[in-house]
């Protein structure tokens, strides 16, 4: 059997592919976090809870209204994004003049509320969400059997990340967002309605989390705590990529998915901690993150 540094090649490749799938989720989630942090200076601890709500909304749309996966892919982010808009207008808005720590505490509290509420309503055991018919089946890659749905997750996440990157870096709307991120008050003094932009940006970041939740539903099952541990990893990804860096969050999300996959081959015991070790090293050597600005 072919080996690479003594490890069987199929095992290495298999873990890399699974790492790619995880990395796609990290990229999608850290992208939303980075956009929100950039403009609002809020460390959105509720991001994992919005991801979870995305999964639940997909589930409820299916069992209550018969809306299928494809419908949920559009509707769940809109519904959860609207909830995010409400949260920003009613709660976060009042904290911008205070220390950023208050935003973190508020969103942390919100996450606990959302998770507690869902647990009370639906219990904590996972609910299976069916893989859509068009995406069932497997690709035989030789070294592993890859469910078509997981390949779809990679393609869908990367496409969305790419479109968001284009929107932010290459369009007029994105230029306005970048300007407001850099200097909100001056941008507003040019006649741009920054408060509305802040609200919509939070809604959009939250909608991205919900989209990730819908994509995850057929893989991980829907449960109130599906976002709890994930969000901690995603925070590490954002710190490694550089707070507020769009490109950095996408690339480091994918990269860390791979690193995690490789660690599972080389030293499985460390696979859950490797990202945090990298985060510590990056913070020591380059506190602004790999792609952050000084």
């Amino acid at each position, binding site marked *: 059997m072919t080996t690479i540094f003594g490890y069987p090649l199929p095992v290495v490749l298999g873990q890399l592919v699974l790492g790619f799938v995880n990395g796609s989720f990290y990229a999608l989630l850290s992208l939303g976090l980075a956009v929100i942090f950039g403009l609002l200076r809020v460390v959105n601890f509720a991001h994992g809870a919005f991801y979870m709500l995305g999964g639940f909304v997909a589930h409820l749309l299916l069992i209550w209204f018969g809306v299928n996966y494809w419908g949920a892919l559009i509707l769940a982010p809109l519904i959860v994004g609207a909830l995010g808009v409400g949260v920003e207008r009613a709660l976060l808005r009042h904290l911008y003049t205070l220390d950023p720590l208050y935003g973190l505490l508020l969103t942390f509290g919100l996450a606990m509320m959302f998770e507690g509420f869902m647990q009370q309503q639906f219990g904590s055991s996972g609910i299976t969400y069916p893989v859509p018919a068009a995406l069932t089946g497997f690709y035989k890659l030789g070294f592993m059997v890859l469910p078509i749905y997981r390949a779809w997750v990679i393609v869908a996440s990367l496409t969305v990340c790419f479109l968001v990157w284009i929107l932010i870096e290459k369009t*007029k709307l994105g*230029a*306005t967002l*970048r*300007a407001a*991120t*850099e*200097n909100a*008050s*001056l*941008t*507003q*003094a*040019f*006649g*741009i*309605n*920054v*408060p509305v932009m802040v609200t919509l940006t939070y809604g959009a970041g939250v909608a991205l989390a919900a989209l990730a939740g819908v994509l995850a539903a057929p893989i991980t099952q829907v449960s109130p705590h599906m976002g709890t541990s994930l969000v901690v990893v995603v925070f590490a990804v954002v710190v490694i990529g550089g707070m507020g860096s769009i490109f950095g969050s996408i690339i480091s999300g994918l990269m860390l998915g791979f690193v995690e996959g490789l660690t599972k081959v080389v030293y499985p015991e460390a696979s859950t901690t490797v990202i945090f070790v990298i985060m510590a090293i990056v913070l020591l050597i380059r506190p602004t993150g790999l792609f952050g*600005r000084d």
Partner: protein
Amino acid sequence: MNAPLLELKNLNAWYGESHVLHGVNLEVHKGEVVTLLGRNGAGRTSTLRAIMGLTGKRSGSVSLFGQEAISMAPHHIARLGVGFCPEERGIFATLTTGENLMLPPRVAKNGGMSVAHIFDMFPNLKERLNSPGTKLSGGEQQMLAVARILRTGAQLLLLDEISEGLAPVIVQTLGRVIRDLKSRGFTIVLVEQNFRFSAGLADRFYVMDGGKVVHHLRQDELAANATMLQEFLGV
């Protein structure tokens, strides 16, 4: 004379707890160039920022184009037709020169200066359109900061220290630009440290000290008041 285009009455402003403007009164009529003189900390920059709604709490009255703007948000104030060029120039590092130029939305229905006209005025900008805004030289950044608000159709320009730190040849260019804008009917408020630059440009002068207007002069009164100016502007 018509009603002033900009009128401040007993304008007070705060940054947090710090009370920076203590009852500023001044008026600027359509087509005038007016300069605010004074030492650093006299309240000139704060006056411009307070007009834009960029300080903390404000009280008193800011009347712009006949509308009371004291409780308006900055984006509404800008859309009345006010263009603001901040002291630090405010060129965005994450935007290209072109994106910086096109950032402010048009505030006038009949539009502002065309991009072609702006390139005639500032030819350097045309060649640097795709460079990041902050890679431009200081002079080019200052031209970009001025050009950016001309595109919007704003009729009242608030220009904070536009000659600061620039080479004499660039200061001369900016002087020509101001005269050209005045001849086109723009109304301009300058905050200037460079007395010689503004002395040749402005119709009237307000001397500020301690967050208040302490003197008011027409251009033809400058020479007779040299001693007083020395006292308020000298270090």
